[in-house]
């Protein structure tokens, strides 16, 4: 059997991590919002941010899956390369399936049930869900992939350089935004920046996220190549 496929199988057997937990969290949020919607009697459209839980979850999964599965995979005589490729493939599949499900639920929400009968907008949000279907799918998919690899590259820094590396990384992650804020304030660039951000659609923003995602993925692969169990 192809060993990359073996890694996918290894992840797939962990249904709690990939399916049950994220969907339970989101559906719990959905039900709560539906109940709120019932109390509001559908007098106005009730927008929620509950869908974000699944995106945040992927970031957390990216951080934790490495310590959960890397030592196990390596001890099953998998190559580090197999582990990386298999994990990336698994995340791509999970993201694709999740994106499709979200889109479908969004269609049911807006076009079939009128906000589940109580004008709740949970799966379909303004701005994010602008653009055509393919673009919407891509937005979900690329954001999930991006967040996963953001968590994953942090975990691989920890795996490769242990605590020292992670602390250094976190320090950089604190310093860079602080410097950015200072620069933006000093040069009074805030308005320009917001203008620039809102000048593009969500879909256009995901396009500049893509190279960043690739950089995260490549870096995590480089770190894992030299990681030990």
């Amino acid at each position, binding site marked *: *059997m192809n*060993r990359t*496929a*073996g890694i996918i*199988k*290894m992840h797939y*057997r*962990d*249904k*709690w*991590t990939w399916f049950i937990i994220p969907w339970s969290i989101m559906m719990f949020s959905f039900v709560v919002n539906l109940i709120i919607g019932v109390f509001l009697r559908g007098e106005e459209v009730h927008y929620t941010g509950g869908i974000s839980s699944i995106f945040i979850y992927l970031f957390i999964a990216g951080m934790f899956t490495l310590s*959960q*599965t890397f*030592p*196990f995979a*390596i*001890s*099953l*005589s*998998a*190559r*580090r*390369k*197999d582990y990386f490729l298999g994990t990336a493939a698994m995340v791509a599949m999970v993201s694709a399936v999740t994106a499709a499900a979200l889109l479908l639920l969004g269609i049911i929400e807006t076009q079939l049930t009128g906000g589940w009968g109580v004008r709740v907008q949970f799966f379909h949000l303004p701005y994010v869900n602008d653009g055509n279907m393919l673009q919407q799918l891509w937005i979900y998919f690329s954001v999930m992939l991006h967040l996963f690899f953001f968590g994953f590259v942090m975990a691989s820094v920890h795996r490769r350089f242990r605590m020292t590396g992670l602390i250094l990384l976190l320090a950089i992650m604190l310093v860079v935004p602080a410097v950015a804020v200072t620069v933006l304030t000093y040069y009074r660039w805030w308005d320009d920046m917001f203008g620039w951000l809102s000048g593009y659609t969500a879909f256009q923003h995901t396009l500049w996220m893509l190279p960043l995602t690739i950089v995260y993925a490549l870096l995590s692969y480089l770190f894992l*190549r*030299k990681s*030990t*169990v």
Partner: protein
Amino acid sequence: MSNILEVQRLTKSYGGATAVNEVSFALEPEKIYGLLGRNGAGKTTIMHMITAQLFPTRGEVKVFGENPYENERILSRICFIKESQKYPDTYRVVDVLEAAAAFYPNWDRDYAYALLEDFRLPPKRNMKKLSRGMLSAVGIVVGLASRAPLTIFDEPYLGLDAVSRSLFYDRLIEDYGEHPRTVILSTHLIDEVSQLLEHVLVIDEGKLIMNEDADALRGRAFTVVGTSSKVDAYTAEKEVINRSMFGGLASATIVGDMTVNDKKQAEALGLELATVSLQQLIVYLTRGNLERKAVEV
């Protein structure tokens, strides 16, 4: 047939501490080896380097003639079962077996499930809820069912009861008989496995101090007991690895094959002779170090 594993001057240092120091040895195919030594002697570190899970500071590892690092052809022929194995939190016993099935080309599924029953392992039980002995048993099941040409067990029977240990030895012997392969049993509990071993490697403080045929070592050392002056006279020109006193009596353990002359000389001095077990021999050889260290401290 050529060696399946060759280790050349393998060294691993952490900062100033040397965990493995210039270890060299070679393993022949289809033998059962014992990698023996005290806890912390460096056995686990060596096995991690053999399987490319840890990187040597210096030295060379060749498995089936090649460097195992990121080498699919080589890694797929190695199964390393470690005592401290981590599993994904949500994994059940059955998940471990199914994942393992994807990585070992010779995996025998029916055999794995039969072993599960032999060891009375509940397939649906979460790995986190298994006792120490059950965890060891899962490792044994994976190691045996993998039928990997190089199978390594690190402290395979921690927490296992006598029945399960005996079961492990039986299954290992049977399956090894039907599907010969190279097996390394690494342990500090020598007496349990010593008679299963064809060849022993003894590691002490990161160094390889013995690399010999197990049967050749049995009876290699002997102990003489008698009054201390006579024991001293007898051992004057010999390699003594252990000496103890009891009242006016002394006993000394000597390395070397007991020759007829040795025997006659001892008898002439009125000394009693006793053979030394393989386990006892290794204990003497590795304890010497401990005592020297204690004196330094």
